């Protein structure tokens, strides 16, 4: 019966969504939401993606996903003893989300009249990557609601082997989805926004990072808590991850933070989401503490895999707290001192980078755990030697970033060699996803440091035919043309970069959209594994020259590649034990 109801719930929501999507495809501008986010000049693909381009539609999609995961859960795990509690929890969440949708963000409101055309989809969102970024992000949030419901079920019915298996599955899926969403957002920021970077430590970005960090700690905590070690800690992380995802949507939608990414904000939505956060926070944490006696837990042994995992969790939670404080501190000062602040990116990078090194050191230690265990005295001596070498290097005049690069490169080589030795001696790699995941995190750290240290930018003024020499390569503005498209006109600038007889062409574009006269630009990028040439077309001057921002960014491709490897590792680690 319950499972049938969950299918019915999903079908009804699916019909509602299909109905709204149909209005978009039919250009029915008598729907206010369609009017605001579409136009009849829009290509069909974007008419469809316009569905989730603003708050109302994206929230509806999120509810659809939540209902979908409820249905899937019932389909696959109907026999499990945790399903009633999990269903009740999800239904509870679903109920409040639907209330929120109906009373504060109803996408089905209509005009009495039929406008001839809509106000068009935000041109920034007319990009294939951004068309899929919001649904993926919401899916990530929603899947963490499912892990939350499983954790709550565990509080009532006890954590058995079956529950752990399913928890691992859902935690893996959510972790994968949220990581993918963050990666898509980064790629979009780099290619579409044209700010020359992929991460800005902007509040809206940090807000997404919070559940991701908690989720990362949570996924790792599942490994040791299966042996009844620090079980309550795992439960606490599971609850926090979900709460942080609601907090994220509250902060983004209420507009209480100064961000360069702004969203339509509405005080009534803010109040509703805050109340929702308060309700879930008090209910779930109250439950957690009232049941904490049941979660009898042991502490792990010193120098064991579990112990390292606990350390990893502590470091991750510390990073989480740093991001949390840095992001929310401006709210505190605004409320109590009426002082608007913004926290610079150096706050985050200077604090988090050393902690990432600690994490990498933990991976390395884990690799040599057997050795460390058998020779406890040697371990102490080795770690003291390593620590003093680093302290010495740190005190010496060596650039700390270079030091970091050397350390990360060493870690990369050691991990790779370990994996290769294991592969050739046993023809198999145990827990492949772990090795691959950790390798890609180390590679990612390496690329980020590389990018941070070596990238260069210059602003110049060029006429067609002009050349400029910068950082060992010659940039030439070949030509500038004007082209017309269906819903925009564009100025297209072709450049060529000449470096050691290798010639590359770049095309940068500036678009003027016909509805609203909005101007956006397409960055010209030519990538190789090590470095990117990145050109942004600026403004035209009286004498026919154009201002141009020309950057050489290192390691961008490596950042994407390592993130994709990480995603593979997450996916493989999640599904390898499951037949489905």
């Amino acid at each position: 019966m319950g499972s049938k109801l969950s299918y019915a719930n999903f079908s009804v929501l699916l019909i509602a969504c299909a109905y709204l999507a149909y209005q978009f495809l039919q250009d029915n501008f008598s729907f206010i939401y369609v009017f605001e986010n579409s136009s009849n000049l829009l290509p069909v693909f974007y008419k469809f993606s316009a569905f989730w381009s603003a708050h109302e539609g994206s929230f509806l999609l999120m509810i659809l996903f939540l209902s979908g995961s409820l249905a899937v859960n019932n389909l696959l795990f109907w026999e499990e003893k945790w399903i009633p509690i999990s269903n009740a929890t999800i239904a509870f969440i679903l109920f409040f989300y639907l209330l929120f949708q109906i009373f504060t963000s109803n996408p089905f409101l209509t005009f009495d009249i039929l406008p001839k055309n809509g106000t068009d989809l935000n041109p920034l969102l007319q990009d294939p990557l951004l068309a899929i970024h919001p649904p993926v992000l919401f899916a990530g949030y929603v899947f963490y609601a499912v892990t939350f419901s499983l954790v709550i079920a565990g509080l009532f019915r006890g954590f058995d082997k079956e529950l752990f298996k399913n928890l691992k599955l859902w935690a893996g899926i959510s972790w994968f989805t949220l990581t993918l969403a963050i990666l898509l957002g980064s790629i979009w920021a780099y290619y579409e926004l044209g700010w020359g970077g992929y991460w800005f430590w902007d509040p809206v970005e940090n807000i997404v990072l919070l559940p991701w960090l908690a989720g990362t700690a949570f996924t790792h905590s599942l490994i040791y808590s299966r042996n009844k070690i620090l079980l309550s800690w795992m439960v606490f992380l599971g609850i926090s991850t979900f709460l942080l995802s609601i907090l994220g949507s509250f902060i983004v939608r209420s507009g209480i933070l100064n961000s360069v990414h702004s969203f339509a904000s509405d005080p009534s939505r803010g109040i509703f989401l805050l109340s929702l956060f308060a309700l879930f926070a008090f209910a779930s944490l109250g439950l957690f503490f009232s049941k904490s006696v049941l979660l009898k837990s042991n502490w792990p042994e010193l120098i064991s895999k579990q112990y390292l995992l606990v350390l990893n969790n502590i470091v991750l939670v510390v990073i989480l707290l740093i991001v949390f404080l840095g992001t929310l501190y401006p709210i505190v000062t605004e409320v109590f001192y009426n002082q608007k602040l913004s926290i610079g990116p150096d706050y985050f990078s200077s604090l988090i980078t050393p902690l990432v090194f600690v994490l990498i050191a933990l991976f390395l230690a884990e690799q040599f755990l057997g050795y460390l265990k058998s020779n406890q005295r040697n371990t102490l001596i080795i770690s003291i030697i390593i620590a003093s070498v680093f302290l010495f290097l740190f005190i010496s005049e060596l650039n700390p970033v270079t030091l970091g690069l050397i350390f990360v490169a060493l870690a990369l080589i050691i991990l790779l060699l370990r994996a290769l030795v294991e592969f050739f001696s046993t023809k198999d790699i145990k827990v492949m996803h772990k090795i691959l995941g950790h390798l890609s995190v180390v590679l990612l750290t390496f690329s980020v440091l590389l990018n941070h240290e070596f990238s260069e930018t210059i602003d110049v003024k060029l006429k067609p035919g002009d050349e400029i020499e910068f950082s060992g390569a010659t940039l030439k503005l070949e030509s500038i043309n004007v082209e017309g498209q269906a819903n925009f006109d564009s100025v297209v600038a072709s450049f060529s970069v000449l470096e050691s007889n290798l010639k590359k062409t770049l095309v940068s574009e500036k678009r003027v959209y016909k509805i609203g006269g909005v101007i956006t630009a397409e960055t010209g990028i030519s990538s190789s594994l090590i470095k990117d040439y990145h050109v942004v077309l600026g403004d035209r001057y009286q004498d026919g020259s154009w201002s141009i921002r020309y950057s050489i960014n290192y390691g961008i491709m490596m950042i994407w590649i390592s993130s994709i490897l990480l995603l593979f590792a997450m996916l493989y680690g999640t599904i390898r034990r499951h037949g489905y």
Partner: protein
Amino acid sequence: MATRIFLVLIMAILVLMIATFSLSLVEKEEIALIENQEGKSLNIVDDLYDIEGNQIPLESLLEGKVLLNVWASWCITCLVEHPFLKSITQSKDVKLIGINYKDQSFNAEKYLLENGDPYIFSIYDLSGEFSLKLGVTGAPETFLLIDGVIVSHRIGEVNMEIWNEKFAQYF
């Protein structure tokens, strides 16, 4: 014991957090307080132009009963009240003058072309400066002026009900 300390700590942090967030929401709303401008008189210092760029004679605003309607092509509620404004100019003897608020002129012209133009003319107020002096906080808003004095001010959409309540008595 440890659990209890943890409980108190976490709950205290939560309460503090939620209290702070609520305060930040409250302060947001105070800024959005909107003032009614009734009883003030119109005081124009700058030259005014219509959407095509023709200068507007000031007398047209200061003499007799003038209905001033703030609109923009990007404003959805304006589109909703548009048919009502058209019907009112046809049925009543009213001088309806528009204020085109923070809008691109080509968008404004297209809007009037597509939806009809009930205005005698529209004051082109791209910067929003003229509207700011008038006390406009957004679009749509409607003022009734009698000999340059604001006798009635509606913030938001005008429909038959609002008309009867706020404006009909003067006609």
